[in-house]
C-alpha cells in the first residue's frame, strides 16, 4: 500500500493513428472482424475511469515462472532461459504500481498448448505457456520463461510470426485496458510480419521490440530482455467541474 491518493481524472484521449486501424486487409482475419462505422467518442465517465484492482494475494509462487509453473516436480521447460522485465508507466512518465500483467506464448519450438493448434512442432510436456505478475510500487515487473520460437500461420502463402510474447495489462482504469505483443531484438521476421505491419508508425513498432539486457542477465543461467509498457495517462482533476449532487 502507498499513501498516494487514488487517481480520479479522465484519461488522455487515445491517439488512434498510433494504434493499428481496425481494417488491415494484409492481416486477413481483420477483414470481417473490423467495425466500419465511426466510433462514438466520449470523454471518460466513472464507468471507464474506474477499474478492478488485483492484489498480490492472487499470485501463486510460480505464477511468474513459466519454466516451472507447468513442469513436473524437479523438471523444467526446454528452451533458452530468459528473464523478461521492465516497468509499467503512464503517458506522463509516472510509474503504475499494482498493474496486473498476464502473458502467454508458444514453447521454444513455436508450438502453443491449444487443441486448435496444428503446427507440427512438438509440444513440451513441461511447458504450459501462461504466466502473470503484478507491478511493484515502482511499476516494475519481471518473469522467467523460455524464449518462444517463431511459427508459421495461415494468412499469406508463407507467413511466419516473429518470436513474441503476448501481454495483457490492467492499469487503474478500465479504459487503460491493453493487449499487445513483445518482440525480440534482432529477429529478422519482425518487419515481414503482417500483424506487426498493422501498426502504421515504425516508431510504435520499435517500442514493442525488447532489447537484450546484459546488465540484468544472470551469468550461467538466463539472459534478460527489457520491455517497458506505457498505458494511457490521466488528467489532473484539480480544475475539473465537480459533480453536482455528489
Amino acid at each position: 500500500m502507498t499513501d498516494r491518493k487514488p487517481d480520479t481524472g479522465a484519461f488522455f484521449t487515445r491517439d488512434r493513428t498510433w494504434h493499428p486501424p481496425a481494417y488491415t486487409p494484409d492481416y486477413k482475419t481483420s477483414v470481417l472482424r473490423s467495425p466500419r462505422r465511426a466510433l462514438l467518442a466520449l470523454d471518460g465517465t466513472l464507468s471507464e475511469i474506474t477499474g478492478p484492482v488485483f492484489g498480490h494475494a492472487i499470485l501463486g509462487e510460480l505464477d511468474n515462472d513459466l519454466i516451472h509453473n507447468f513442469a513436473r516436480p524437479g523438471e523444467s521447460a526446454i528452451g533458452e532461459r530468459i528473464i523478461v522485465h521492465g516497468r509499467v508507466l503512464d503517458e506522463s512518465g509516472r510509474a503504475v504500481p499494482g498493474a496486473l500483467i498476464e502473458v502467454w506464448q508458444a514453447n521454444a519450438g513455436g508450438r502453443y498448448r491449444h487443441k486448435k493448434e496444428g503446427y507440427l512442432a512438438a509440444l513440451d510436456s513441461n511447458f504450459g505457456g501462461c504466466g502473470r505478475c503484478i507491478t511493484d510500487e515502482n511499476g516494475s515487473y519481471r518473469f522467467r520463461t523460455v524464449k518462444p520460437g517463431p511459427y508459421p500461420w495461415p494468412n499469406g502463402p508463407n507467413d511466419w510470426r516473429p518470436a513474441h510474447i503476448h501481454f495483457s495489462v490492467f492499469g487503474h482504469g478500465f479504459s487503460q485496458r491493453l493487449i499487445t505483443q513483445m518482440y525480440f531484438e534482432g529477429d529478422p521476421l519482425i518487419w515481414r510480419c503482417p500483424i506487426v505491419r498493422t501498426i502504421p508508425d515504425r516508431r510504435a513498432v520499435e517500442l514493442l521490440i525488447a532489447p537484450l539486457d546484459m546488465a540484468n542477465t544472470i551469468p550461467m543461467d538466463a539472459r534478460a530482455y527489457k520491455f517497458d509498457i506505457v498505458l494511457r495517462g490521466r488528467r489532473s482533476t484539480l480544475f475539473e467541474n465537480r459533480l453536482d449532487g455528489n
Partner: protein
Amino acid sequence: MTQDLTYLKETASQTAGPYVHIGLTPNASGITGVYPADLGSAMVNDRTRGTRITIRGRVVDGGGASLRDGLVEIWQADANGLYNSPGEQRGRADPDFTGWGRCACDGDDGEFVFHTIKPGRVPFKDGRLMAPHITFWIVARGINLGLHTRMYFPEEAQANTEDPLLLRIEHRDRVATLIAQADGNDSYRFDIHLQGERETVFLDI
C-alpha cells in the same frame, strides 16, 4: 523553440491472436494446475447484494459467424451504483461484488455467459444519472485494438431515453444495438455485431 512536451506514447496494441484463452482463461482452455481458477470467472458470492442476472451473447463477424476464439470482459457498478475500485470516491462498494468478469467465447458455439447482478445508476460528469449499464471489452484474433461498448437494459425504457451516452448516438436506429434483449426471468441476451446492418455502436472513451 519551446520546451518539449515530454509525454510518452502509449504502447501500441496488437491483436490478442487465436490463443488468448491460454493466457487469460487457461483453466477453460485445458491448461490446469497453473492457477487455481480463471480470473473473472466468479463475480458474485452468497452475500452479494442485488438482483442476480445472467447475460448470454455472442460476438458475430461480418459474415454472420460467431467468434469462437474471442474473449469478453465486463465492468459494472454494484446494486447501489458504486464501483469496486480505488477510483470510486462516492462511497464504499459492496465488498462481495467484484464488478469485473471475464469469459472466453465457447470453442464450439461462441457463446459467452456472465452471472452477475443488475447494476445501479451511476452519474455522468454533469451529475445527470446514466441508465443502468455494463461496460464491455472485446478482444480476439483479427481485432487489432480491443473494442469498448456498453450493454443497457430493455426494461429501463425511461432511463434509457434520458441516458447521456445513448442521447449522443446520431443515428437513432443504432441505439438498439446497445440494448440487451430479455431472455426469460432476470436473463438477458446481448449479441455484439462487429460489422454489417446491425453493427454495434463501439466507443472511443
